[in-house]
């Protein structure tokens, strides 16, 4: 599943980052911010008016992401395989 599909408060581990184009600056930046396979993430909150933006914890940092960014991140919930 993708990061934005996690339930609020859900924990997961990143399994892949998708690059949507050859030079996907956003995907690259996500990785530089620590969104890399094997890293645990948590969806802490979502925006008040809709499902966007997402408040995501990775490492010791909290980032606000929009769905477009979060959908580049493939995650596996704990206890789930693959």
């Amino acid at each position, binding site marked *: 599943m993708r990061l934005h599909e996690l339930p609020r408060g859900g924990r997961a581990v990143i399994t892949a980052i998708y690059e949507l184009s050859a030079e996907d600056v956003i995907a690259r930046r996500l990785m*530089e911010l620590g969104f890399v396979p094997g890293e645990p993430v948590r969806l802490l909150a979502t925006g008040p*008016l809709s499902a*966007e933006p997402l408040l995501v914890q990775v490492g*010791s940092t*909290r980032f*606000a992401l*929009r769905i*477009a*960014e979060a959908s580049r991140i493939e995650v596996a919930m704990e206890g789930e395989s693959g």
Partner: protein
Amino acid sequence: MTTLRVALVGNPNCGKTALFNQLTGSRQKVANYAGVTVERKEGHLTTAAHHDVLVVDLPGAYSLAATSPDEAVTRDVILGRRADEPSPDLLVCVADATNLRLHLRFVLELLALGRPMVLALNMVDEAQRRGIHIDRAALQLALGIPVVETVAVRRGGAMALIKQLDLAVPPPQSHIATQDIHAQVRTLLQQTVSMPRVTDRRDEVIDRIVLHPVWGLVLLAAVLFLMFQAVFSWAAPLMDAIEATLQASGQALRHVLPEGALRSLLVDGVIAGAGSVLVFLPQIIILFLFILVLEQSGYLPRAAFLLDRIMMTAGLTGRSFIPLLSSFACAIPGVMATRTIQNPRDRLVTIMIAPLMTCSARLPVYALLIGAFIPQRSVLGLFNLQGLVLFMLYLAGILSALLVAAVLKKLRHDTSEHALLLELPSYRLPNVRDLALGLWERATIFLHRVGGIILSLTILLWFLSSYPAPPAGFSGAAIDYSMAGRIGHLLQVVFAPIGFNWQISIALIPGLAAREVAVSSLATVYAISGSDTAAAEQLVPILASQWSLATGLSLLAWYVFAPQCLSTLAVIRRETNSWRSTALCAGYLFALAYVASLVTYQVARVLW
């Protein structure tokens, strides 16, 4: 002796500028969000061994692969790509000791450059509070560079770093392999850092309330509301005191000086004119008190989070939020702060709408007109009507900015992606000393403006309003014969449909250089044309009695939009590097201002 060139580099918000200020005794802006510094700044330091060190503060960057103009500045300085500047002799890489998982990645990326480098573990006070232990010796060994601990916000907190600057630093032995950088960070963390919890419990608890879908919005509204109420109610006693003092000095001068040009210059020009702006000092201070507390606490990025959806609807990136917010102080730093926006088109749109945010120079104009035309009444027994109207004026600016952004988005058929990727920092208690210094600085800036440009322009206007003196036997008011009177009457042809009289028309011109001058110009013009009584020094009752409500409201509407600030236009020109964009911006703002005033005036005239 040669000067050592040192550059401070690191992730955003790790305390580089705080460290820079500590090292060089400068007073650059420090605040608790990513992207405060957007330009390169330099300062000097003399070490214990009398070495001269040139310290360069740089914008924060997550990586050398820059994605925004501010990061590009950092990259170019580090890599020595700027024609006017050799690459630094030593990199002082600053890292937040409480967030090494993120910050060490950039450290390793920089290390791979093979340049002399020192790692400053900053915020060790915070790390201690959270029970984070870092084995400095082991980290030093693993990285192959000196590692020092600093607390940039504490006096003497940079001693270890200053000592280190006296020691020669060899380029690092590059035994860090080129394998996966994230794997290396994990290994380093395992070997050298112990953390009881990866996050701060305090932050989590606060965020649960602040970012709550309901309470978060309630809190945001309450904060903004309190701010506008405070600007009016807290400031009132101080403003009255300043006003009384000014009036007393005006009276005193009247008694001492003989009737004539000098007396008029001092009383009508200096005291009534520039003094009328001085009165607003308490309001400016209170506004900035709120802005500074919000900036220091770490709340701003949270507000950006809460309002992101609205920004998105208008086709803006959430990144635009902080530049727009900075524009409430002044559009100039706001326009500069757009350098943190990655997408060039998003950046341009943000620059275009930044002048619609109500800057602090507009506050005196708003406050004057509100004081004259809006009764001091409480609404629902809770709100002060004047504060409410001020809030609505700010809101009008914000809503039209969103509207303009949405229109621009439609016009350019924008379907591109607007990334957010915003880091939410740890909360910090604003430091009282920093707040006091910040307010002091603001007060000084304001007083310099009053004593400098505002005073000069007001005096200039006094001359224009006093000369040429009418010939004997001139039947009308003397000021009608003066230069200013004539220009004002000419301009009035253009402004009559929106309800501006000739006094307003003439005051708008010097107002181009500094918006507050509109207030002092009105004060001077009315003081000169007024009778020689004490009442002439009180602008508010004059306006209330001589202008119609429709005119007052129309001028308020004008000030929501009018691009009456040449310095802002100059910065827009510099940052966009385009006369076309600048002209477009000024043009659309004038058009909006005229239409808004026209509608306001005509509607108000019918209604009241």
